[in-house]
């Protein structure tokens, strides 16, 4: 059984934000989307929050659409399954669809949400390198502060420290349009294909000019630092060069960019080496 705690179940965003701004029992409830992270913690009783704010009924936070400026809007409560099934996501952010397919398995995909993955702020979050590589703004809302939009780049100040202010909920994401002619890439390395937390997770966006040199190169990685990170040295080593000429240097840059640790899932040496090799072989294939 779950810990015996109050669960608030608002049926509108307005009601949810009011419960966060003015908690009925004094302590701010912990927001819960699909529950695929927080329910595990609650079942284990390692950490027991004073109460939970169950967001599942807020249909207004679901759905995908393309905005006038070409960005892809994804409501925070959109599940991985809805992202996999969305023609808009497949067209405008194919790497996110690939990421969604690697999350858990079908039962997790039908409950887990993009907003939950971002708010949970794990450095191993499967979707996070995609949002960093393609570029994305996070839209948050509170009762007293209204709406706030900020870049996903820099959203995590440190390990599990997301820029979510007290009283705020993540409403959704504006995923930037891919540059013309760009391709995207996603790769998760885990113990097995399904139900695994990643050892290394990588995403990239690249485009070449008419002369065959790289005009866009954005690479991001998860599980290799306290937060998901952009691989700045790798990108700098590749931009302006031909993919086959610069692939090795990009790989070397990636090895320098990551600061992995040894933990239960993998070790630093493996994570650094695999990051370098996978990035190198992707760039070589461009």
């Amino acid at each position, binding site marked *: 059984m779950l810990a015996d705690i109050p*669960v608030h*179940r608002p049926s509108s965003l307005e009601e949810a934000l009011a419960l966060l701004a003015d908690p009925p029992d004094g302590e701010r409830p912990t927001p819960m989307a699909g*529950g*695929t992270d927080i329910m595990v913690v609650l079942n284990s009783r390692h950490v027991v929050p004073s109460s939970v704010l*169950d967001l599942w009924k807020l249909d207004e936070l679901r759905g995908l659409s393309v905005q006038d400026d070409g960005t892809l809007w994804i409501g925070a409560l959109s599940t991985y399954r809805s992202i996999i099934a969305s023609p808009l996501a497949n067209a405008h952010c194919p790497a996110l669809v690939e990421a969604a397919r690697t999350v858990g398995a*079908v*039962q997790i995909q039908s*409950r887990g949400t993009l907003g939950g993955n971002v708010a949970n702020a794990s450095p191993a979050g499967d979707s996070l390198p995609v949002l960093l590589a393609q570029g994305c703004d996070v839209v948050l809302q509170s009762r007293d502060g209204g709406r706030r939009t900020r870049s996903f780049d820099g959203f995590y100040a440190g390990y599990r420290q997301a820029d979510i202010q007290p009283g705020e909920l993540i409403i959704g994401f504006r995923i930037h349009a891919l540059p013309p002619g760009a391709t995207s890439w996603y790769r998760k390395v885990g113990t097995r294909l399904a139900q695994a937390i990643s050892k290394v997770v990588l995403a990239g966006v690249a485009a070449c000019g008419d002369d065959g040199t790289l005009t866009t190169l954005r690479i991001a990685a998860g599980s290799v630092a306290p937060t998901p990170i952009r691989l700045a040295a790798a990108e700098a080593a590749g931009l302006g060069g031909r993919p086959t000429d610069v692939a090795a240097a990009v790989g070397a840059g990636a090895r320098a960019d990551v600061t992995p640790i040894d933990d239960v899932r993998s070790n630093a040496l493996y994570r650094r080496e695999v990051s370098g090799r996978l990035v190198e072989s992707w760039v070589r294939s461009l």
Partner: protein
Amino acid sequence: MTDATTSTRPAKRILSLRINGSTWEGAVEPSALLLDVLRYQAGLTGTKRGCDMGTCGCCAVRVDGEPRLSCLTLALDCEGRDIKTIEGVADGPLLSSLQQEWADCGAAQCGFCTPGFIMVGEALLERNPKPSEAEVREAIAGNLCRCTGYVKIVEAFMRATAD
């Protein structure tokens, strides 16, 4: 811990579900898991508690047709929904074709994981009556079996989809 008589235990709420085609109503704690309501309040113990952390798939049921982990689902989130458990798969003594092949192939050894596999499998076969072996393996990726090595399980699926 506060004394039971003075504690501010969250009040139970009345929950109404459709379970295997029948209406079920009961008073549940706000934090009650669907798994516990099914097993201990509705008496449907075919749904198994394995890992309690969303990893093993033993507790899978269908909510409005979709496979869900009942250990990670609050019962109150299912208000008014259509729940299907392993008890609702067979039509009386008549097993579903997947269940029949499961038995014929020996896909169950200890059997603890079987209800979860069957629930996910029925959802797959409804959506895609002729899955490839790769599609079967992707669909059951969230279900762990520690006895069979999956060979007999996949065989049961492939036989259930054969003409």
